């Protein structure tokens, strides 16, 4: 499988199917790639905007209390090219986010992928990725 992906990637790149990411700021300025986090929760608000779009979601803590997270994704142009629309997420949607935490320890993270309620897994157009 690895081999197939290895062969496929350059081909996809050749046809422009693998899109470049929106690396507005360096990932390293704010986030820590040694601190991956998986967040599952309910969308509070989706701000489809530049230079980065933000997903606010409530993640249920072990004590049964909701913890509010702010998750950064790419710019609107980078997200649009990956299939995102401004109403791709609505308040109450249950989503799963694979992300990396902010260095400052706040409940802030940078999304690699977001799994939508309909099962689609979209790239977060993270400033971490390369082409």
């Amino acid at each position, binding site marked *: 499988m690895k081999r197939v992906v290895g062969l496929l990637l350059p081909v996809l790149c050749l*046809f*422009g199917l693998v899109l*470049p*990411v*929106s*690396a*507005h*700021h*360096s*990932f*390293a*300025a*704010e986030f820590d*790639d040694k601190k991956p986090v998986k967040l599952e929760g309910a969308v509070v608000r989706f*701000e489809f*905007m*530049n*230079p*980065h*779009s*933000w997903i606010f979601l409530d993640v249920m803590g072990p004590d049964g209390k909701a913890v509010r997270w*702010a998750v*950064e994704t790419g*710019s*609107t*142009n980078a997200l*649009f*090219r990956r299939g995102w629309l401004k109403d791709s997420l609505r308040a109450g949607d249950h989503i799963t986010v694979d992300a*990396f935490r*902010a*260095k*400052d320890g*706040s409940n*802030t993270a940078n999304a690699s992928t977001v799994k939508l309620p309909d099962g689609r897994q979209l790239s977060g157009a993270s400033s*971490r*990725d*390369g*082409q």
Partner: protein
Amino acid sequence: MTGNSMKLAMLLLVSISIAAQSEFTPPRLADGHPDFGGIWMAASLSAAFNVEEHGASYGTPAGPSVIVDPPGGKLPYLPGMRERAADNDQHRERDPVGQCHMHGVPRVMFPPFPLEIIQDGNFVLILAETEHGVRIIPTDGRPFLKDYSSWNGDSRGHWEGDTLVVEVRGLNGRGWLDQAGNFMGVGAHVVERFRLTGKDTLDYQATVENPKVFSQPFTLRVPLRRRPADVELLEYGCIEGERDAAHLPAVNGEKR
């Protein structure tokens, strides 16, 4: 294969590749100059991450140096300047682009966003999706603006055969070269060279002279690749929702 026959084979390959390059006849506009029109982007994002050779770090892939001169691929920093770049690398929150400033020349030519080139007989326009940067490059021989200073500076172009040569003055000296903190200072003078090497490949080279930061001029080279026909430039209103600053350690030395 013996060493000699291997060398011969390599020589043959290189000759074929050079011949193929020189045989390419670019499409031309009515004025006879090559038509660079279209949407372009750096063939690799490597230079956007770091113009020098770099290993994989912070989740970005490893990549080769794009510095083709001096040989060795290292930026010819003056004593003490490489330490400043290394310090920038540890404080990427200082990156002007992270604060929605313009990329500046030459970095604006290889960001992780597409560019559109439009030209007529008097101007070459480079529209950068990032920060909506617009470079208006007159090719009609007019003089430079007097005492001008800005992120992308003041560009004047002329043709040398099928190569567009653009001289850039008036750079404000605040621009970085990449995300890794390599930087330029005041008084930088840049000469760019654009040449079509194939239907969908545009060779971009920039020679930077900046005696306050570098001991000698250096040249970087980044091939640009034409984007598929359905790619259009999109809006990128950078500052509409900036939320990072609150989580950045410091911006220009001051906590916001």
